């Protein structure tokens, strides 16, 4: 409810066909109904338009805060699951302090009757189990005057920074749990909030059981009792805030994080080898893969470092087995040399980079979009490769699948940029359609039967050379990061060098035709385009909704194919409006600089994390531009 500054909800517009090839009818995406879930927008029927509809689909943001041990993350996850059963969509973000245990932590939950892909600017309901360290969240938990606070009686001293004007209700969750013999005031809070959202006791207990799987039945039973006591409290002392209304959602909905969906997408598209070195916030991609890849017959190796990880993946890729690794900024920097090897030797390789705050070790647990430069430009020599960005938590599935197919089809490196926000937020979403992509070496690119004449690095029309893999008789060759002739013999000749450089660049031009290069939503009479990438895209969509409500129609475009950039298609989009505003979450405006290198005239709005970009600030930027 705190979104759009003035308290409007998000709205969803009919997907407007506006990019040639980016249509509903003629592409893989639409055939598979991908459009229904990739972004929160495509394929959703419009409700109504105009300012009066703003309050029809209310969203609400609830935050639970406490110290690290107080279980607020667990409450958030359980409440999201239970609320989803009632009919809500939602998104959950976790925020921790630097401590491994103890310290501050928060779960921030946004619920709405339709898919939710971004966070709001403020907090409607704040549930505080422990006030200590609350102030460390500083700018991350913004309390408005209409924020309603529920504090546990045992939460301790309320900080002075809490505005006096907000309404505060003190409830004794701790005492309630204690009378039942439990120390879990968080479960009492779960029951309280669940009841308020309309969850049944069964739904809450199901959530508890799911979360506490490994516990014994006595523990489960006690937890159920505490939750029910919490529900009772809600009946007596409901929050001074109207409960939001659930929607009537699709039959099959999922609860998943972007990182899980990325991992799933990779496996579904055919990844069968993963090399892993843990790093926040990419570790959970690797952990999900580790516990699932066996089922597909694939393998995961925990490597000694990122240098080993990326080279292991290259080894598997050279062997014809679709392979990936996942990392974050510092690890990506370490992988740069070997990524160049994948490019030069034309070995398929997928690298997922889940961004966090930088530079250097930076802010490891928080989101930022600072690795654009490194991903696009960080290789030595002229090393054209593919860089994609995932446009929403759900889009991680699609984009990893696409990257997997690209890496193997084009025999190249595909880097996917995600970030902590996309990767670690837990989302309720429509179940994704079957994976439309499959990794495979194009049949046409296989070597001729007559091995005598096998030319691994042949300069073909498409630029894609015939790739044999070990085991193929008669096509033995040595893949090489040294420059080479078409026959894979090392060469320092200017002609060979020019030919291979051009070939490696040209082969990627096939991607320019892809309908998947971007996602977007147009509005009639829009005079401005908000252009973003990665996790900025859902925020831009919400800003669009708010702006429309304010009478300012804008277009929104999220670019999925960052490199090579389909400049002509992008230009065509930009030509429809008179102003372009590029948004991103980093300090230097890396994407905007990149676009200007192509000749784009644009405004740029960017600032670093860890505070998330909000629809409100984008709206303000747009309004300033439109007014000027």
């Amino acid at each position, binding site marked *: 409810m705190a979104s759009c500054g003035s308290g409007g909800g998000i709205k969803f517009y009919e997907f407007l066909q506006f990019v040639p090839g980016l249509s509903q009818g003629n592409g893989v995406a639409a055939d598979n109904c991908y459009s229904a879930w990739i972004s929160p927008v495509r394929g959703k029927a419009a409700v109504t338009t105009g300012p009066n509809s703003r309050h029809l689909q209310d969203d609400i943001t609830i935050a639970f805060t406490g110290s690290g041990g107080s279980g607020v993350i667990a409450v958030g996850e359980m409440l999201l699951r239970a609320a989803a059963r009632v009919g809500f969509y939602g998104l959950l973000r976790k925020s921790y302090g630097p401590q491994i245990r103890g310290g501050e932590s928060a779960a921030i939950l946004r619920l709405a009757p339709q898919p939710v892909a971004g966070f709001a600017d403020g907090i409607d309901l704040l549930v505080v189990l422990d006030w200590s360290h609350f102030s460390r969240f500083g700018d991350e938990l913004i309390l408005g005057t209409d924020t309603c606070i529920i504090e546990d009686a045992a939460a301790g001293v309320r900080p002075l920074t809490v505005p006096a004007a907000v309404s505060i209700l003190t409830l004794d969750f701790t005492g309630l749990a204690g009378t039942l013999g439990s120390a879990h005031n968080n479960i009492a809070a779960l029951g309280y909030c669940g009841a308020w959202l309309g969850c049944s006791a069964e739904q809450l207990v199901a959530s508890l059981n799911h979360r506490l799987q490994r516990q014994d039945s006595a523990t489960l039973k006690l937890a159920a009792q505490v939750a029910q006591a919490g529900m009772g409290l809600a009946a007596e002392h409901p929050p001074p805030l109207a409960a939001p209304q659930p929607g009537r959602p699709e039959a099959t909905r999922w609860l998943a994080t972007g990182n899980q969906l990325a991992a799933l997408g990779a496996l579904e598209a055919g990844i069968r080898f993963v090399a892993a070195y843990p790093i926040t916030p990419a570790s959970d991609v690797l952990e999900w893969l580790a516990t699932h890849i066996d089922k597909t017959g694939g393998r995961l*190796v925990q490597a*000694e470092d990122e240098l*080993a990880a990326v*080279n292991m993946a*290259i080894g598997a890729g050279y062997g014809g087995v679709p392979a990936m690794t996942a990392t974050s900024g510092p690890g990506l920097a370490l992988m740069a040399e070997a990524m160049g090897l994948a490019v030069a*030797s034309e070995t398929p390789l997928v690298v997922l980079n889940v961004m966090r705050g930088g530079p250097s070790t930076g802010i490891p647990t928080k989101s930022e979009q600072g690795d654009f430069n490194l991903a696009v430009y960080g290789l030595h020599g002229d090393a054209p490769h593919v860089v994609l960005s995932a446009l929403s938590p759900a889009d991680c599935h699609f984009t990893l699948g696409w990257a997997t197919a690209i890496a193997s089809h084009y025999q190249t490196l595909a880097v996917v940029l995600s970030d902590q926000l996309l990767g670690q937020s837990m989302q309720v979403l429509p179940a994704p359609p079957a994976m439309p992509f499959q990794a495979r070496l194009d049949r046409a690119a296989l070597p001729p039967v007559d091995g005598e004449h096998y030319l691994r690095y042949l300069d073909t029309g498409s630029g894609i050379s015939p790739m044999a893999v070990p085991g193929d008789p008669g096509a033995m*060759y040595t893949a090489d990061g040294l420059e080479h002739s078409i026959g894979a013999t090392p060469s320092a000749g200017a002609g060979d060098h020019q030919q291979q450089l051009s070939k490696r660049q040209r082969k990627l031009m096939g991607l320019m035709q892809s309908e998947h290069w971007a996602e977007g939503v147009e509005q009639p009479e829009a005079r401005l385009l908000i252009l973003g990438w990665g996790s900025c895209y859902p925020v831009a969509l919400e800003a669009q909704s708010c702006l429309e409500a304010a009478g300012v129609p804008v277009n929104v475009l999220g670019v999925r194919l960052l490199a090579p950039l389909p400049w002509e298609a992008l230009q065509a989009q930009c030509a429809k409006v008179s102003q372009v505003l590029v948004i991103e979450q980093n300090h230097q405006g890396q994407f905007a600089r990149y676009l200007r290198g192509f000749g784009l005239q644009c405004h740029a709005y960017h600032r670093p994390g860890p505070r998330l970009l909000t629809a409100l600030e984008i709206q303000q930027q747009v309004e300033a531009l439109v007014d000027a």
Partner: protein
Amino acid sequence: MLKAKEYKSGIKPIWCPGCGHFGVLNAITKAFAALEQAPENAVLVSGIGCSSRLPAYVNSYGFHGVHGRALPVATGLKVARPELNVIAVGGDGDGFSIGGNHFLHACRRNVDLVYLVMDNEVYGMTKGQASPTTPAHWDHSKLTPHGPQLRPFQPCALALAAGASFIARGYAGDPNGLAQMIFEAVRHPGFAFIQVLSQCVTFCPEQARWKQQVHEEDHNDCCDPVAAARFLHGEDGLAKGNFYRNPRPVWPPSAQAGGAVDLRSEFAL
């Protein structure tokens, strides 16, 4: 069945005449002949260095990667394609300097690979700088004008401490003996490490003396790490032979039969 020389690719090596790496190339082709190796099922993986150029000269698949990373590439390939015969090769600089961490971890990981290091105690390709195995007082490099002044790296002793299950040292001047060693290393289940004394005639002409100095020392039956450690701490670095062989479980354990793949159900609400 191919003859040894049919395992040569026909590409002419860039090596200096008399370079030990020729002997290693010969030994590999002889071992392949003895193994009746199907050329399409063998892969030689290397890093960067004179020695690392070897894969292109063999009639098999090859991967010439970046400096120091032969073992990770070989590991990924072997784990992904266990039916292949994967042999990592390279130099002492590649394997023990920049690649030292992968060497350690390959020894303990015990993937079923062979790792053959052509040790000439020098960086040949970059024109003669000291490598980890260079003698402390070798002062021929301008980069270390007073010699490296460091205790030389002891590859076999380190392989032992790191957990390698097959450790041997060969000599490029004895390609037949080396071929036999490679044969056994390929047959050995798990990680097999062979250090090969392979002279650099250009930057270390003094290594011509190896012909006289290298001596046989076979511990074929040695599976006692303490005995092996005792031997390796005492020897002069010029003994050739099998020093240690102690098979232990290969990684990864063989795959479980995969059932029907359901990756999605856990997400459903």
